[in-house]
């Protein structure tokens, strides 16, 4: 049993008042002369036992009345499975307002139903509870019940994905340190399979995790994934719940439809883009509206550079010369000093190939070091095939001969970072970039690699001189409200970030209950059982009403005993 107002229990000291008054009253009774004392003595002797019992009974009843009233005022909470109150509890309510919660079911957003459950969880909290609210934005809000209820009311479907497993772990860490009688985490989510993340929540025995079972079954959905532009075409991946039928996707540029395709989730369609001038271009891929609108449109942005002025010495071989000639004809490059292709780095942007004469490797390495390039050629390497995650043109191409590229430690190995490794062979760098210099592990000659013989060679050279060597920023993607942000340096736009929902939000497949229970260590309950299971075990009911009724009954009994006795 616990009390809502334990300080009131100090009033129990008043329970000694009847006994105290009794003693004080007996101490100095008024005196009177009365001749018939002998009759009094007789009467008292005959009534002594009855009177003593009556006195004791009255004392007990009066003490009981005071005790009951004080206990009632302290608002005792006693264990009761159906009780409305409960022991002080640290509670985190995780309300999943990720984009997937915006799906419309039976004409009503799923989020409304989730919000109602979260509201009910917070509404059933007591004044002694400590409460937190965690939304998809990842902020753990501490607040009083009214404030958090207001936060729930004002919450809307957010553009951010919620990793439920991660959220539960954070919530458990929050409540685990609270010195309260009970700790609970309520997970109010649509429980997408993709929202569970990887791994399992580290169980905390003192924390109960209740997860609301998925309110609806698998919902068909189609969404647009991250659009990539390369080779003059936009690659539009279709995402969604597996098994959903195909839908029409439209690619628009500045509001003008430039392509349309029909595809089902899991399929990537390629839509040719028109020939555009240099600069940043923004387009969007749009699906016909379905129940989840958040993923029906995806923005994408790409940059078209002006033709680079390239010069290449005769030592680079005929293949590069031929490719450059093609590119010059297509106005993709021009003759000039912007980018140099040679066996040694020039003063500007350079693409450096291994010298045909191994004796010159040392001289090349010294020139690289003089440019501040940390990479260098380190002797012949083993043949193999190219692996280039960001450069599909290169992937799988055989390399028969190469110079190992070493150094560059501490520069990072990200594909998109300056000075990073762009392609590897046998796990060793083959194409790297650092300080405006691109080092290639093989000469672009069929004696070294099969790349010049492939159809992707000219596009590769185009990419090499127009983007990789100059280090032209590629558009980044980020999670957020769909929009495009451009990064500027002075008057130049040097990069762009496209915001949109996480592609994983499009798959509305609900996680199996046993998987949720295993991953989150939670009891997965339907709406009714979820409501019943809140604070169960510590559920209390306010017994003050019963105590007041008891006090009234005891007071009536006291009155009856006192009255009947006289």
């Amino acid at each position: 049993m616990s009390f809502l107002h334990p300080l009131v229990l100090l009033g129990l000291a008043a329970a000694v008042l009847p006994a105290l008054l009794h003693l004080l009253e007996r101490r100095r009774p008024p005196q009177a002369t009365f001749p018939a004392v002998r009759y009094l003595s007789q009467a008292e002797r005959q009534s002594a036992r009855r009177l003593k019992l009556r006195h004791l009974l009255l004392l007990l009843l009066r003490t009981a009345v005071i005790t009951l009233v004080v206990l009632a005022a302290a608002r005792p909470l006693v264990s009761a499975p159906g009780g409305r109150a409960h022991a002080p509890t640290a509670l985190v309510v995780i309300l999943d307002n990720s984009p997937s919660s915006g799906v419309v079911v039976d004409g009503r957003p799923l989020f409304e139903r989730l919000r109602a459950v979260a509201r009910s969880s917070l509404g059933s909290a007591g004044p002694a509870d400590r409460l937190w609210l965690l939304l998809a934005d990842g902020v753990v809000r501490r607040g009083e019940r009214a404030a958090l209820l207001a936060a729930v009311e004002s919450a809307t479907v957010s553009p951010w994905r919620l990793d439920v497993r991660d959220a539960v772990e954070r919530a458990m860490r929050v409540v685990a340190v609270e010195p309260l009688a009970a700790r609970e985490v309520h997970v109010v989510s649509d429980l997408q399979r993709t929202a569970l993340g990887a791994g399992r929540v580290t169980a905390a025995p003192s924390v109960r995790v209740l997860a609301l079972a998925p309110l609806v079954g698998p919902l068909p959905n189609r969404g647009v994934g991250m659009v990539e532009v390369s080779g003059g075409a936009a690659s539009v991946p279709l995402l969604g719940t597996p098994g959903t039928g195909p839908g029409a996707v439209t690619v628009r540029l500045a509001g003008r439809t430039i392509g349309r395709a029909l595809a089902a989730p899991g399929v990537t369609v390629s839509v040719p883009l028109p020939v555009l001038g240099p600069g940043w271009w923004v387009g969007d891929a749009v699906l016909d509206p379905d129940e989840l609108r958040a993923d029906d449109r995806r923005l994408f942005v790409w940059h078209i550079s002006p033709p680079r002025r390239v010069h290449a010495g005769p030592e680079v071989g005929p293949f590069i010369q031929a490719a450059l000639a093609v590119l010059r004809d297509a106005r993709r490059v021009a003759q000039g000093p912007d980018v140099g292709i040679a066996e040694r780095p020039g003063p500007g942007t350079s693409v450096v190939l291994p010298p045909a004469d191994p004796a010159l490797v040392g001289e090349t390495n010294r020139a690289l070091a003089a440019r501040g390039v940390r990479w260098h050629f380190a002797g012949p390497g083993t043949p193999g095939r190219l692996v280039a995650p960001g450069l599909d043109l290169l992937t799988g191409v055989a390399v028969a001969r190469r110079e190992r590229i070493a150094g560059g430690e501490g520069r990072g190995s990200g594909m998109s970072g300056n000075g990073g490794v762009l392609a590897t062979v046998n796990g060793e760098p083959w194409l790297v970039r650092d300080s405006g210099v691109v080092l290639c592990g093989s000469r672009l000659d069929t004696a070294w690699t099969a790349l010049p013989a492939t159809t992707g060679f000219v596009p590769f050279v185009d990419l090499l001189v127009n983007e990789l060597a100059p280090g032209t920023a590629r558009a980044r993607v980020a999670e957020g409200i769909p929009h495009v942000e451009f990064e500027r340096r002075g008057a130049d736009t040097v990069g762009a970030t496209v915001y949109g929902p996480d592609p994983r939000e499009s798959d509305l497949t609900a996680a199996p209950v046993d998987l949720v229970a295993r991953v989150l260590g939670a009891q997965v309950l339907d709406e009714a059982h979820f409501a019943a299971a809140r604070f169960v075990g510590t559920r209390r009911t306010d017994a003050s009403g019963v105590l007041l009724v008891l006090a009234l009954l005891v007071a009536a009994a006291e009155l009856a005993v006192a009255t009947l006795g006289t």
Partner: protein
Amino acid sequence: MLTRPDLLDPAEVARLGGIEIVAQGVVEGFLAGFHRSPFRGFSVEFTEHRAYQPGDELRYLDWRMLARSDRLYVKQFEEETNLRAMILLDASRSMAWRGSADGLTKRAYADRLAAALALILLRQRDATGLLTFDDAVRRVIPARVKAGQWARIVRGLLETPDGVGTAAEPALRHVTSLLPRRGLVVLISDLLFDRKLALTALRYLRHRGHQVIVFHVMDRAELELTGPAEVQFRDPESEVSVVVRPRELARAYGVTVQREIAAWRSACRRHGIAYHTVRTDMPFGLALRLLA
């Protein structure tokens, strides 16, 4: 009737004057109401007839006269003068108590009752005496019928102070020496003493052929226990005290008092003793009427 002193509130009557005046007033009123001696059976003789008046007792109606003349006459009697009566008055300290400030003490009531009774007896030419006692015999006025006897009795009442304890038995035994012939013994007391001893003495008096009448004088507050929530009552004679809660003990006390009265009445009846309880707020006339 309301102007008759014998039927007024004793406390109001007592304020009219001293014992003599009160007793005379009471007796005058009392006898006027009776129109005859209330003490029949003590050697009375028929004297004459008079016309029946409403209020006369039917037992004194002369039925023969009624049969002969068809008129209503009642018989009148004249008492003999050879009756000897002793009034025993309890003057113990318990008698000097009253339950309310505007009432009479039991002693004051008893004094006036005794004086009135003595006056009635002396007017009938009965030799009347007085014996006052507390824990011992305090004053004795032998029974006489001569002039000034009533004044002596009244003086004896006035000159007997409030005593200490109570012991009726010696006084009752002393009476036997004062009444050598059969006579009347009237005991006026609150009877707050040993009942067995007193009854032994009363029984002895009855055995000697005396007519015995007991007036049990009580204050209303002795019959109904009242007071504050808790009070320490002290016996003025024995100084014994007891702490009680009047409200919760009232019923048991009332039962005890009634049982005590019943015990006195039963014991007296068993031995041919007339027993009467009189409250100090009872008009003297009603108390005297108990003897009729």
